[in-house]
């Protein structure tokens, strides 16, 4: 193999690849990134951990075809050290890749494996129905829900995000069993419907792909092309996403997402409107004094005031309040401060609506202004302190 590429193209794809490549796994080959010539003027990079797979094609000046698999992190670090401009890649003996910055003396050689030893990546069959999702929308939906995905990888359904698409609405729901967030937005011209569970790692990669695509589009500064979109295809156990030359596939989680609709209260007894920033700041301050073992904060609604209190034998007490418009009976409820704070930070509005019931009823938090373009809702289960 003997090719010349620009560092910019190469490192953009490589960055995605090394995020997916499995660094600590039991199959060493999965820590590699595959570099192969796929056609005249086309170089493909690919990486997989057998659950996620990413590949991208970049333009290249191909002198000689071939392929090689080298350590993703090694390659990434060396490419980063290269000056901007052209990179020449050549394979020696089929198992070593020499990386050279064109026009300079800087050069690296990395030992790897023949490209044929790299596992085959899943490929969508041609002609599958496609769904076009604006990357900005998807990114925003992920952003406002991904924090409540459970990090416990033994509970498959909660360790992933539910993506639902029907009648022109795209919805993401995540929960860790103690809180739940749901965000949905309109997407253009669809008549299909999809339901899929994407694992946490896949969601994180998807977010970065969306963000990259947005950054790319912003840089291109070409108003005529419109907002970039992501093509979504579904086949068997896999979902495929395509953004420009980048292809990303996820092995979907085969588990039952809990019946989330049932736990969203249809109406709360008391709903108060509160300034988002004020609440977030008060919570953040007070939670400093929360017992680090439980992180519990007591929230009290009393006349025109929302009160936050913490107390614990080891860290003393903390207190703050936020002025609100409230004229009902006093209500007190305990929460994990972090849960509440995550949500307050995720809401793209200056004011939030907090719906409370009894001491052990779920609290519902949503932005004060609702719009069809972007709808958000969070449910937090209380903590008995």
């Amino acid at each position, binding site marked *: 193999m003997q090719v010349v590429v620009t560092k910019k193209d190469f490192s953009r794809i490589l960055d995605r690849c090394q995020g997916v490549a499995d660094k600590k796994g039991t199959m060493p080959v999965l820590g590699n990134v595959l570099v192969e010539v796929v056609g005249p003027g086309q170089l493909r990079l690919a990486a997989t951990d057998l659950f996620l797979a990413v590949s991208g094609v970049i333009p290249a000046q191909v002198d000689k075809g071939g392929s090689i698999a080298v350590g993703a992190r090694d390659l990434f670090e060396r490419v980063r050290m290269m000056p901007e401009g052209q990179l020449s890649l050549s394979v020696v003996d089929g198992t070593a890749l020499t990386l050279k910055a064109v026009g300079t003396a800087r050069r690296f050689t990395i030992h790897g494996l023949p490209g044929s030893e790299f596992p085959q990546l899943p490929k969508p069959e041609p002609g599958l129905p496609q769904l076009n999702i604006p990357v900005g929308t998807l990114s925003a939906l992920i952003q406002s829900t991904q924090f409540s995905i459970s990090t416990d990888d033994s509970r498959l359904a909660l360790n992933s995000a539910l993506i639902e698409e029907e009648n022109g609405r795209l919805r993401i729901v995540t929960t860790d*069993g103690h809180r739940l967030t749901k965000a949905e937005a309109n997407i253009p011209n669809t008549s299909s419907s999809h339901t899929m569970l994407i694992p946490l790692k896949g969601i994180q990669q998807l977010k970065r792909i969306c963000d990259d695509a947005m950054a790319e589009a912003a840089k291109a500064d070409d108003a005529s092309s419109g907002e970039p979109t992501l093509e979504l295809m579904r086949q068997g156990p896999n979902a495929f996403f395509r953004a420009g030359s980048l292809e990303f596939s996820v092995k979907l989680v085969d588990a039952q997402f809990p019946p989330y609709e049932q736990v969203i209260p249809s109406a709360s007894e008391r709903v108060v409107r509160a300034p988002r920033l004020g609440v977030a700041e008060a919570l953040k301050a007070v939670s400093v004094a929360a017992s680090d073992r439980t992180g519990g904060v007591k929230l009290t609604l009393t006349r025109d005031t929302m009160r936050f209190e913490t107390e614990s034998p080891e860290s003393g007490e903390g207190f703050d309040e936020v002025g609100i418009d409230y004229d009902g009976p006093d209500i007190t409820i305990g929460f994990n401060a972090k849960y509440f704070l995550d949500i307050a930070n995720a809401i793209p509005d200056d004011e939030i609506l907090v719906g409370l019931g009894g001491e052990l009823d779920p609290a519902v938090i949503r932005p004060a202004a609702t719009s069809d373009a972007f709808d958000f809702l969070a449910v937090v289960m209380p*903590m008995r302190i």
Partner: protein
Amino acid sequence: MGRIEVLPSALASQIAAGEVVERPASAAKELIENAMDAGAQRCDIICDGGGVTRLSVTDDGEGMSEEDARLSLERHATSKLRSIDDLSHLTSYGFRGEALPSIASVCRLSLRTRRRESEIGVTLETAGGTQLKVTPAGLPVGTTIEVRDLFYNVPARRKFLRSTGTESSHVTNTVEGAALTRPGITFTLTRDERLVRELLRANTRAERVEQLFEQANLVAIVGERGPLKLEAYLTRPERARPGASGLWLIVNERVVRDRMLATTIAQSFGSVLGAGHYPRGVVYIDLPSELVDVNVHPQKTEVRFVDPRATADAVYSIASRELGSALSLPPSPRNRFGVRNGNQPRTPGISMWGKRKPDDEPTPDAALRQPNPADEQVVEAATVTSSSLPASSIADSAALIATPSAQSTGLVRDISEASTHSTLLIRENTAQTTSGDVRWSSLRFIAQLRQTFLLCEGPVGIYVLDQHAAAERVAYQRLLDQYRSRTMAAQTLLFPVSVELSPEQVELVEQRSEEIAAVGLDVRVRGRQQVTVHAIPRLLQRASPERLLCDLVGEMARSGGRGFSAALEHALSLMACHGSLRAGDTISQTEAQALLGALDTVDFAGHCAHGRPVVAVMSYNELERKVGRR
């Protein structure tokens, strides 16, 4: 002609021998005790053919005159007891005057003895207690008793002997027991012509224990309450064994078997020891002789305490407190006993203990000296059990052992409020200077290894912690604290988890609903075999609710009569295990350092709730040796 006859004395002796001399080891025990009672400085034991062929005990004690020697072979002839009053102050091992004649009746025995004052010694030889042959002889000072052909005339008994190897290991055991009780005496044991034990006289019990448990890395604890003194050298929990066979209990310099005491010692380890496991090691308990009755068992391997409850309670509170702190610190590679020496509690001085237990307890002095009014029950009990003894003085002493709180229910143990400040005083007094102690939080976290171990740098070595064991220990302690202070925070679940249980378990859940709620689990019964979990303890929110409930219910069902709190403690440890950081979880620098800090606040921090050690240590010395720097 009447059918009832008085037994010939030889036969009576043989029958009595059945009680005293069960096997060679019991003969050895009697003979060694005689030697120790004779004021020996040195005691040589020879054991051939499992002690059946030949068993000989030679001492350099005071010896006997010919007259005494003849008498010593008569039943109920003893030099150790003159009147019934002496019985309550016994400090000698023997006193019944039964042993020697009993042994003599079942073997060929030869007794050689010379008193220091007499120029000539005497040799007595008998076979089966008869055919006494006395010859004068030139002998060294002291007494040698040689037993040959044990049970040659009691074939029934002989049949029940085990293999030679088993019998000789029993003899060895007996010698070791004797050696532990009297560190000041040199013991040698020659078995089948080979010297197998040589224990030179030691100045302290610790020294003798070390001679016998060379490799064991024991934890030394010392404490007292009232007249009861406890000194123990115990293995770390990871080397505990099922069954109490490796645990020597020595009460007033007498090796005893006492199930209750052994259990008490095991309990004082808390959940760190698995059920049915006991540490190996030696426990010395010393208390005034009038508070124990040794005349319970012909072989005197059982004792009866005047107030067993108070004794057990005192032992428990001393041992648990001391073990708790001894096993909390990371083991220092330097110390002889592998743990800190008593002088450096985790934070300086008594103040810390004062802080931890803010209750208005009596001052240490008061606890030691004032018999509390509440002690009356004990006084009564003591009077009943020891009516032939001067009751008041005993009752006083007994009352001293039982501190006020020992009077309440058995739950006292769980809460362990009994005051053992005395141990602290001792600690301070006997302070030795070492720098062996390390606090967990002073260790510097370096890296996580294989997502399982935490590598830390300490002042004298590297420490490798098992992250799961450490996190579990901390979680367990916190759960326990929260549970005891009834402040268990519970996180409500979005999706209640439905759990299938057996009808009996469901019934148990119904009966114990309040206690279960106190643990932070919100469980509601849905049907005959179904319950739902609606909330779980905040500390354990990583754990699966189903698993937590099954742990708890399973433990409650198993415990049966053991009472809820013991079951709960065990259940909490299981829950802590299932809810903690596991091997395979990544941990950040801050988390690791916080974990180390948390270990400082926890008793028994050196072991996870199931007794696995939390940490392995390698000293820099050892490292340097390994890489050839030394």
